[in-house]
């Protein structure tokens, strides 16, 4: 018998009522409504897991231009720079006039041929506005900060285990602001227990018709996008062991809408529906060049520079030399900051460098020995099911008891300090008594941290305890990896970057992380592919796996023969100081150790070169305006000698707001052979993933790179683009006025929406000047065109990123030996 939804809706209505005996609201419908509304905001993780992600992800279903109109409308945000700024870029030559003129012609033509694009504006406005909206927002800010803070405040909100809505519903009855109004109190006291029923009731009281409810909830979420994004992230991490209490957007909206009712005093009566606003259009003023045309001209100007570099290398005009990898192969993260250090290493040593996603193919979480919880160390696109636990390296077991003793003393002191500082009875006395001590500590931190850098002992400490990655599945590590899983993941990692033959004596997986002081946004400078953690741990783990003879045997059976004398090592590149630490050198035999020492000395020279190159970004505006075919020389730019100690000191300076530039300025993702870019100075603006199209017969490696790393680069690019275009709406504003809340986020001042994007200091060189002009990412893929097209046909979500102009695509087709522009 055929079943239809109509039948379910009508014929069985009576039976269904049995299930609704306590409620007239279908909870599934309310949940679905909220899930749809929630697409207006992306997720924002806690600070220590910060990764750059496109805050406008929910608008990717639209063409980019149409999306910007909607984003401007919902968030009252800017999606482009001002016209004057673009005109200045034309005058300065950063926008190519020829490209701009060609785009203007195209725009004028399209304007005549195409019907005017009409964008449906939100069909309803928030009931609250002006001062009332401010009251709702202020109350929401304070309540969210209070509820979600599980670490900083000593007196937490009561009964948080019963949920966000429950706590609000009970606390508001005791709020002196409202307790004088008996009618209000009685109304609040009668609110439903269930958040679904409560949200449904609030929409009814506010007079929001069925058809407008989705839009109304979207507007409510866009009012304070920071809290909404963070709560959305928490909702996706329900029962995460880092937090005791769960929270979700449905309860958040139930509270927020009731606050609107309370502040509008609408609980007394229902109000009639307002007239709605209609349609907005994308029409520009007659005779004006639209800013999006300027923006595209800027992007295509840089694309032309990069395309020219690749084309000249394709033609064999420059830099095409056989790769000398006699000293080592070093695999770096595809992060844009690896471009500079790779270029510097290649310039002083016979080391081949490769690029890959910096989690090196291990979809795991990693529990450090001295951390309470494991942290995900893989891209946020993956939910890791495996866990690697750190254990003491057998060779340093004898030093472990001393290490444990100092750790327990340190933990005790920290705990005592926190209790004394925050306890009502002791806080004032503690401030009086310990003030002098704190003054001394502050002075020491201010003046002696530089001494620490200057007199740093670079020798390996003999007293240091080393930790090893316990990757194996065992009774003590039930979430570890089986041998088969280790084979599968490590082999895939090698195949993705095309490293399946010609292994060097040393193959070094080099993760990255940043060293900064007093920086709540430290994770934003760490590895995005490792979910905002340092990448060295994954590097160490994958090296350990590939040194296992059993794994090598299995991999050999699949056609990848790793020579017996090849040693895999883990390492970490400090992106603030450019120092590279190679782990576990003591597993290398003494004969080989000499060559490792030689490599370390070359890496030291490369670090100096790269620091100098990076510092040019700060001291010469000229160098930032284009990509360079060769390394930029500071003397040619008239820059005096670079103070290396000053750069290194940034890693220890607790007043430094710009320790490094992270991924600022990213403009392209290159997937292909290093030869095509080698020698060029791309100013740390290009993501680079190695790919060997000839070794990937079925295209599966490219498919994986496009499905995961490429998607990640687009997310990162989106964050940098929108945080730069509108730092108030999508960024986190200035660090100077930041106030950390609950160890998970920052507020501006003592109360504001949660700040979730990049700080002003991450992308602006001063309060008003962007370091780089933000651009959408252009993906360059070195592969046969047919292969790329086939992958895009299989994955409509990838294809849409290009057809909807969120990304540009250029295929470097080896069959036709030319670069083909797709969009």
């Amino acid at each position, binding site marked *: 018998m055929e079943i239809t939804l109509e039948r379910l809706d009508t014929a069985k209505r009576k*039976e269904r009522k049995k299930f609704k005996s306590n409620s007239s609201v279908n909870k599934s419908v309310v949940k*679905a409504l909220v899930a749809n509304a929630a697409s207006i905001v992306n997720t924002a993780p806690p600070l220590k897991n910060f990764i750059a992600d496109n805050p406008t992800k929910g608008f990717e279903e639209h063409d980019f231009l149409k999306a910007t109109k909607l984003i401007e409308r919902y968030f009252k945000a800017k999606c482009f720079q001002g016209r004057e700024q673009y005109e200045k870029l034309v005058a300065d030559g950063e926008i190519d006039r020829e490209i701009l003129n060609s785009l203007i012609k195209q725009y004028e033509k399209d304007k005549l041929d195409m019907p005017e694009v009409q964008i449906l504006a939100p069909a309803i406005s928030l009931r609250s506005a002006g001062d009332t909206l401010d009251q709702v927002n202020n109350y929401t800010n304070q309540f969210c900060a209070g509820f979600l803070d599980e670490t900083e405040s000593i007196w937490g909100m009561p009964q948080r285990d019963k949920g966000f809505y429950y706590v609000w519903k009970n606390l508001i009855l005791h709020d002196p602001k409202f307790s004088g109004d008996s009618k209000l109190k009685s109304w609040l006291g009668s609110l439903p227990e269930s958040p679904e029923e409560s949200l449904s009731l609030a929409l009814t009281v506010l007079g929001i018709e069925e058809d407008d409810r989705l839009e109304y909830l979207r507007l409510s979420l866009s009012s304070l996008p920071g809290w909404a994004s963070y709560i959305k992230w928490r909702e996706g991490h329900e029962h995460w062991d880092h937090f005791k209490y769960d929270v979700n957007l449905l309860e958040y909206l139930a509270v927020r809408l009731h606050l609107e009712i309370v502040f509008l005093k609408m609980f007394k009566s229902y109000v009639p529906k307002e007239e709605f606003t209609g349609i907005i259009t994308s029409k520009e003023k007659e005779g004006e060049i639209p800013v999006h045309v300027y923006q595209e001209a800027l992007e295509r100007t840089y694309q032309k520079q990069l395309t020219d570099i690749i084309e000249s290398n394709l033609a064999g005009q420059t830099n095409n030399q056989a790769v000398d990898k006699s000293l080592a192969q070093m695999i770096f993260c595809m992060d844009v900051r690896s471009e500079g250090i790779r270029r510097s290493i290649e310039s002083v040593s016979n080391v081949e460098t490769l690029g890959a996603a910096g989690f090196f193919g291990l979809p795991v979480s990693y529990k450090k020995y001295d951390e309470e919880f494991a942290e995900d160390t893989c891209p946020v*696109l993956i939910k890791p099911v495996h866990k690697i636990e750190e254990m003491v390296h057998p060779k340093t077991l004898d030093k472990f008891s001393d290490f444990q003793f100092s750790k327990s003393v340190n933990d005790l002191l920290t705990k005592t300090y926190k209790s004394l500082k925050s306890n009502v009875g002791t806080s004032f006395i503690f401030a009086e008594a310990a003030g002098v001590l704190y003054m001394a500590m502050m002075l020491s931190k201010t003046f002696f941290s530089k001494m620490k850098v200057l007199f740093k002992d670079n020798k390996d400490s003999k007293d240091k305890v080393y930790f090893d990655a316990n990757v194996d599945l065992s009774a003590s590590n039930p979430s570890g990896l089986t041998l088969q899983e280790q084979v599968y993941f490590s082999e895939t990692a090698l195949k993705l970057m095309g490293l399946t033959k010609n292994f060097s004596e040393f193959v070094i997986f080099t993760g990255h992380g940043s060293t900064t002081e007093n920086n709540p946004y430290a994770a934003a400078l760490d590895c995005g592919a490792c979910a905002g953690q340092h990448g060295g741990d994954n590097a160490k783990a994958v090296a350990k796996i590939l040194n296992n003879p059993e794994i090598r045997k299995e991999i050999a059976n699949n056609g990848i023969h790793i020579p017996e004398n090849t040693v895999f090592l883990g390492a970490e590149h400090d992106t603030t100081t450019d120092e590279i630490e190679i782990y576990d050198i003591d597993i290398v035999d003494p004969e080989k150790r000499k060559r490792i020492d030689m490599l370390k000395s070359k890496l030291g020279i490369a670090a100096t070169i790269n620091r100098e190159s990076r510092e040019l970004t700060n001291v010469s505006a000229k160098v930032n305006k284009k990509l360079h075919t060769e390394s930029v020389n500071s003397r040619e730019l008239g820059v005096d000698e670079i103070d290396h100690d000053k750069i290194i000191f940034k890693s220890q300076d607790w007043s430094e707001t710009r320790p490094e530039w992270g991924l600022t300025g990213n403009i392209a993702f290159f997937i292909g052979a290093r030869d095509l870019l080698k020698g060029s100075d791309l100013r740390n603006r290009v993501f680079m993933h190695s790919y060997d199209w000839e070794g990937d017969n079925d295209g599966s490696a490219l498919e994986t790179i496009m499905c995961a790393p490429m998607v990640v680069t687009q997310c990162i690019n989106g964050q940098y683009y929108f945080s730069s275009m509108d730092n108030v709406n999508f960024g986190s504003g200035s660090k100077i006025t930041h106030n950390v809340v609950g160890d998970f986020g920052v507020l501006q001042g003592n109360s504001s929406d949660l700040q979730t994007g990049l700080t002003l200091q991450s992308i602006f060189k001063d309060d008003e000047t962007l370091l780089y002009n933000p651009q959408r990412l252009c993906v360059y893929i070195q592969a046969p065109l047919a292969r790329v097209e086939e992958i895009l046909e299989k994955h409509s979500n990838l294809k849409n990123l290009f057809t909807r102009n969120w990304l540009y695509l250029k295929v470097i087709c080896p069959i036709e030996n030319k670069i083909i522009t797709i969009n």
Partner: protein
Amino acid sequence: MSEFELNEMFKLEVVISGEDQDTVSNMMKDEGITGYTVIPNISGFGHYGHHQGQMFFNDKSSFVMIIAVAPEDVIARVAEGLEVLFKGKPGVLFVSEVSVARVTYFS
């Protein structure tokens, strides 16, 4: 040969984006569905074009199928919610009559 008794139930099969999996499974749990099956990484072709199942290192862009069996009333309520969800999200829904052996597992 012993007698084998089957009971009438309703089956819901829903194909959704991986990122909506938690939303839909929560709907099911809240309506009292006591168990369901998830088939990850499914392939297909539809309104949104081709979708390849296996996406290595990307769980969020994958599509999943969730299968649940429950009394008609429960399935109807979840289906009603899904109808709302599909106004803003990709997905398809199939509802059919099935016979089950161990009825207590589904109600």
